[in-house]
């Protein structure tokens, strides 16, 4: 099965019943599969007039209680940025799939990249926090899409599946389980102010059509949901909570794989470069090369770096100029070496073997 198809299958298994989007290479197969399958399970597929409308329709659908998603790539992702901020501010659960291609601008529509990793974290204006997952196989396109819906409902944030073209278009063996775990949105008890957060900092969800009479606005709002855009303390409290509800849970959300924790030379990867590193480790079983692979990239789980107490260098192959390498650097004193490879090609095992040699 193809990665993009597996993503759509994961969404359907997770109970996604609304897809609003706009065709764009190399993500289109996600939309095509949803267009074929959603009507058969009582869901709605709608091709909107642009990506701005795509994410807007997803947010609207989410307020009716539906699990809702969109899928896009670079240029469409850029168009979605304002409404991503709206989803953050209004605490709307939704899933956005970005099958990354080469940019800036139209760039390389059919070639792989991982250059939107900072955009998904910081691309909309204002301070905020989100969750981003990165699959490294067709199987993970399925599994992490399921996780994305559960995390979105649990934390009431947009969750991004930040895949790359190689994984999106790759076909390989996949096993689809009979059922998948499902975490429901916490329901708002009647009579509670709709944006009053409890200790977990996540308010219950006042679904439209259930008699809550909730006002939802992208303006800074009080716990009743009423706009109050001129109070410094209210704004500060709200934004701090929106960030903290994700960041304070980052070690719970964290999902990574550790290989050879005693290693001195350690690769850190996410997405398709992980596959090259796995090959290198497989081909050199005696060399004790370490590998830390993130399945969740944001919120950044910096404690994962401590799993390699003897590491003397972190090598970070990415299909960009070093976006996550920069984040790793913030959290460690040992050298962090970005290994950029972009233009669409994937790092070869030989290239990475050479990088290891340099640190022997």
């Amino acid at each position, binding site marked *: 099965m193809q990665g993009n198809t597996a993503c759509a299958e994961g969404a359907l298994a997770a109970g996604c*019943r*609304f897809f*609003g989007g706009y065709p764009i290479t190399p993500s289109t197969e996600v939309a095509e599969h949803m267009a074929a399958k959603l009507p058969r399970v009582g869901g*709605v597929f*709608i091709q*909107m*007039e*642009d990506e*701005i*409308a*795509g994410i*807007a*329709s*997803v*947010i*609207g*659908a*989410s*307020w*009716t*209680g*539906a699990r*809702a998603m969109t899928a896009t790539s670079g240029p469409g992702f850029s168009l979605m940025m*304002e*409404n991503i901020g*709206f989803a953050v501010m*209004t605490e709307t659960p939704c899933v956005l799939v970005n099958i990354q291609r080469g940019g800036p601008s139209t760039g390389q529509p059919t070639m792989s990249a991982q250059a939107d990793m900072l955009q998904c974290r910081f691309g909309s204006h204002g301070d905020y926090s989100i969750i981003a997952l990165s699959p490294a196989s067709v199987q993970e396109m399925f599994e992490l899409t399921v996780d994305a819906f559960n995390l979105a409902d649990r934390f009431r944030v947009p969750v991004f599946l930040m895949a790359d073209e190689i994984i999106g278009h790759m076909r390989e063996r996949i096993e689809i389980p009979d059922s998948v775990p499902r975490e429901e949105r916490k329901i708002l008890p009647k009579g509670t102010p709709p944006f009053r957060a409890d200790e977990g900092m996540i308010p219950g969800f*006042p679904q*439209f*059509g*259930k*008699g*809550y*009479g*909730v*006002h*939802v*606005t*992208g*303006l800074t709002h009080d716990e009743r949901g*009423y*706009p109050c855009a001129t109070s410094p303390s209210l704004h500060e409290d709200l934004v701090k909570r929106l960030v903290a509800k994700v960041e304070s849970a980052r070690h719970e959300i964290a999902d990574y794989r550790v290989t050879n924790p005693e290693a001195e030379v350690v690769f850190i990867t996410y997405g398709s470069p992980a596959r090259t590193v796995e090959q290198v480790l497989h081909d050199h079983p005696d060399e004790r090369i370490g590998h830390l692979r993130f399945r969740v990239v944001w919120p950044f789980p910096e404690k994962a770096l401590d799993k390699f107490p003897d590491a003397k260098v972190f090598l970070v192959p990415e299909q960009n100029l070093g976006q996550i390498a920069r984040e790793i650097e913030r959290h460690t004193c040992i050298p962090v070496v970005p290994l950029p490879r972009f233009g669409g090609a994937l790092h070869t095992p030989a290239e990475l073997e050479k990088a290891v040699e340099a640190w022997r």
Partner: protein
Amino acid sequence: MTYSDWLRVDRLPHIYCAGCGNGTVINCTLNAVDRMGWKKEETVFVSGIGCSSRAPGYIVTDSLHTTHGRALAFATGIKMANPELHVVVFTGDGDLAAIGGNHFIHSCRRNIDLTVVCMNNQIYGMTGGQGSPTTPRGALSTTTPYGSQEPAFDLCELASAAGANFVSRWTSYHVKELTRSIHQGLGVPGFSFIEALVQCPTNYGRRNKFRQVMDQVEYFKTHGILVQKAHRLRDEGLPIPADAILLGDMVRRDRPAMGVKR
């Protein structure tokens, strides 16, 4: 029930300027909604950004105050995901026809079952009076200090060309007619578009020779002509005044619609 039962009383007073026409349109809309017998929990108001778009915040139902120009795209998601809900959109001329123009024509084309009430004040009121796509040629605004050089959009023509099932135009002077047309629009399956010209004394009237609030309302009264009368004049070969405001129901048809309650 009356319109006042639909107001979110703890949010009052509202932010509108003294003499603003938006309150009239909200009042007419709520009266029309009330007359439909809809339940509050089945009704959702959606808006974008601008003076008009603050309206849902003063209404007790579920409401979504979204990003600039995008209200129709959000409303499409709500209505398609749950056709049981009655979805009404408040918008303005800048929100709908400038930044949101693409969503406007595509919502009409899809003929999605929404009712859209556009408060057309011919200016960007909230940001201090900049020119909009409906600012008349020659009119003054902060971004057209020598008079607007651009032709204005006719929003009703746009809606009918793009495929809406119901299209109507009134003004804040024509309270009864406006209420009746909104009521009709609410009942029509498919996309209903009701344009309501409103006075903006603070940012339009002040700069364009409507010194008093009532001057602009009086202008609506004296320059409005029914669309049927305009057609009659045209058929008889008589001139239609250049500054006439065409009023009334322009389109009422039954094209296939999306998102209609089953």
